[in-house]
């Protein structure tokens, strides 16, 4: 910063700030103090500005754990938590796809039906027609992506509202799935097959869970460390080392606690490993590639994106294709969980749970704000409630009402923080 100021600029500064204006650094600049103190002051500033991030949902998870644990001591057992971790993957995978669509500020109501279609395709091809299961799996995923791209085409190219297109898709693909399954209505899958093992396979060696935790922690530390060193070398603001260490320790505690918990039951579930891999990859794509930047840009301002030379139609179609693909992935995990493709797949409260998971996790319904990690937190909340109530033998009607209440609470928190953000100039 130079102290050089043009006469006009000095004139317009108000008298109180006039003294400061002469100093080299503008007092309004957000300069972070180094060390722990700086970390906390930054945190306080963010909370005041309504930038709560994941705090509400983490607090919510703790509250859920405490309540259900006091009701039934089985809730925090390794078996129950392992089951929650496996069950949540189907909904979670679909929530990842929905988050991409929500980032555009759009909605996809067809993901439930598309997931049912994907399960039905695998079952019909591999069981009824005897196709190789891997091939059937690829066909199912490709169909999901193609269905999503079709929705995207009608939305982006023809200009029909995404809400209406995917509502039509919800009905159409539900009918398509029922037609595929035929009169029988249920096709049982081979529990030892590829799809069957998606949710039943556990890495029983205790080294697997600890190893994954160690790799995750080391990977996180090294990538932050080297990224930071590059920033420091380039002379742009960087995080203090203590900050990185603190984050790494926090991640390490959570990762190793989870690993120890899984090892007390059957070991590290394959489903969870796949889910975490998808989260890491999609998060990377969204935040570190030009494609991800385009998605955020479209969620912020379509006109600005178009002027910046972004191919709006292509990005929109591709995002809906991704939603379809992840719906298909979720459908496979769903079919794996019940070891069959049946008429109720993709129906009921699945769609609502998927959207609720994305929103509860902290993805904005208004576009342009969110991360795929939100899917993990949100789906943990929803599935924990389901399992906790099931342990108590509380029936589905009450489950629906409680999940609905949680969703409402989340959007209320979202709206209130948005209002705070507006007054803090951050909306």
């Amino acid at each position: 910063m130079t102290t050089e100021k043009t006469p006009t600029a000095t004139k317009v500064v108000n008298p109180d700030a006039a003294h400061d204006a002469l100093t080299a650094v503008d007092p309004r600049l957000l300069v972070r103090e180094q060390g722990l103190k700086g970390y906390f002051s930054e945190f306080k500033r963010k909370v005041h500005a309504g930038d709560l991030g994941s705090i509400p949902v983490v607090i919510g998870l703790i509250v859920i754990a405490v309540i259900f644990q006091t009701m039934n001591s089985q809730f925090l057992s390794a078996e129950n938590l392992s089951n929650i971790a496996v069950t949540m993957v189907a909904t979670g995978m679909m929530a990842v796809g929905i988050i991409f669509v929500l980032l555009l500020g759009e909605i996809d109501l067809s993901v439930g039906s598309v997931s049912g279609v994907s399960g039905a395709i695998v079952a019909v091809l591999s069981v009824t027609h005897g196709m190789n299961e891997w091939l059937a799996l690829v066909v199912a995923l490709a169909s999901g992506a193609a269905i999503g791209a079709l929705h995207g085409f009608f939305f982006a190219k023809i200009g029909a509202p995404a809400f209406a297109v995917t509502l039509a898709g919800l009905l159409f693909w539900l009918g398509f799935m029922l037609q595929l399954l035929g009169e029988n209505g249920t096709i049982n899958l081979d529990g030892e097959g590829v799809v069957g093992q998606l949710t039943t396979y556990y890495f029983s060696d205790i080294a697997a869970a600890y190893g994954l935790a160690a790799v995750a922690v080391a990977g996180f530390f090294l990538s932050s460390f080297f990224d930071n060193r590059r920033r420091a070398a380039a002379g742009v603001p960087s995080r203090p080392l203590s900050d990185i260490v603190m984050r790494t320790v926090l991640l390490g505690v959570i990762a190793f606690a989870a690993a120890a918990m899984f090892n007390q039951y059957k070991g590290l579930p394959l489903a969870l490993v796949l889910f975490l891999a998808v989260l890491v990859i999609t998060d990377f794509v969204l935040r570190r590639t030009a494609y991800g930047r385009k998605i955020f840009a479209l969620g912020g301002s379509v006109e600005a994106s178009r002027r910046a030379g972004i191919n709006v139609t292509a990005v929109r179609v591709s995002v809906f294709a991704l939603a379809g693909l992840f719906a298909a992935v979720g459908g496979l995990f769903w079919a794996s969980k019940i070891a069959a493709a049946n008429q109720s797949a993709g129906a009921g409260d699945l769609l609502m749970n998927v959207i609720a998971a994305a929103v509860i996790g902290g993805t904005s319904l208004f576009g342009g704000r969110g991360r795929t990690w939100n899917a993990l937190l949100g789906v943990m909340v929803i599935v924990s409630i389901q399992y906790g109530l099931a342990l108590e033998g509380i029936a589905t009607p009450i489950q629906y009402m409680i999940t609905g209440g949680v969703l409402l609470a989340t959007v209320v928190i979202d709206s209130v923080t948005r209002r705070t953000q507006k007054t803090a100039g951050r909306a």
Partner: protein
Amino acid sequence: MVHVSATPVLALRGVSKRFGAVQALTDVELEVHAGEVVALVGDNGAGKSTLVKTIAGVHPIDEGSIEWEGKRVSINRPHDAQNLGIATVYQDLALCDNIDVVGNLYLGRELHKRGVLDEVEMERRALELLKTLSIRIPSVRIPIASLSGGQRQTVAIARSMLGEPKLVILDEPTAALGVEQTAQVLDLVERLRERGHAVVLISHNMADVKAVADKVAVLRLGRNNGVFEVKSTSQEEIISAITGATDNAVTRRAARNAEVTK
């Protein structure tokens, strides 16, 4: 005024543009030199926006010619204008509220390193750019939504500077800004001139025009209605050219009588 080159960076010669039954521009002439701020003024519907759009390549011209650094060129698409070195900052800002300053500056032309966004290099260059333009914003890593209107406008202008343009067109950059914010933007316009850019400034605000422009080109009903040196012209003269106060039945009659008596 700083150094002004002999050959204009941009010259319009007898440009006309027609939309259906509407003759939006008729024989318009305009010259802009490097290191010069030309204000383009006129009443609503005078053809300012149309003229700017013909330069920016949004509407190709029907008649006349555009000369770029003395050579005749044709601008048919926005891309042509960008390739020549013309950057346009439109009135409604082309920024994404949810993306941070660095992301917005580089939107659509991100820097890559092994296929991945090179955030560090983008941030370093963004800081450098903002520093050379003496733009002060709280942080380059906060979303555009948390900036004031004036700061957003300066970011939008800074964004246009990334392509090192020779000519910058600013469409009503101070409309809807407060006093201090307007001053920030005007400071920036002066800095663009000091760095040798040619600037076309569209404005309704006479105070702004008097403050930063070197020349004022007045459009009235799609035609030139005089080009004035700002220093030697009073505000009233410019306004009468805009409103056509000097061109009415009374003045025309006076002019005719003067000819007759001669």
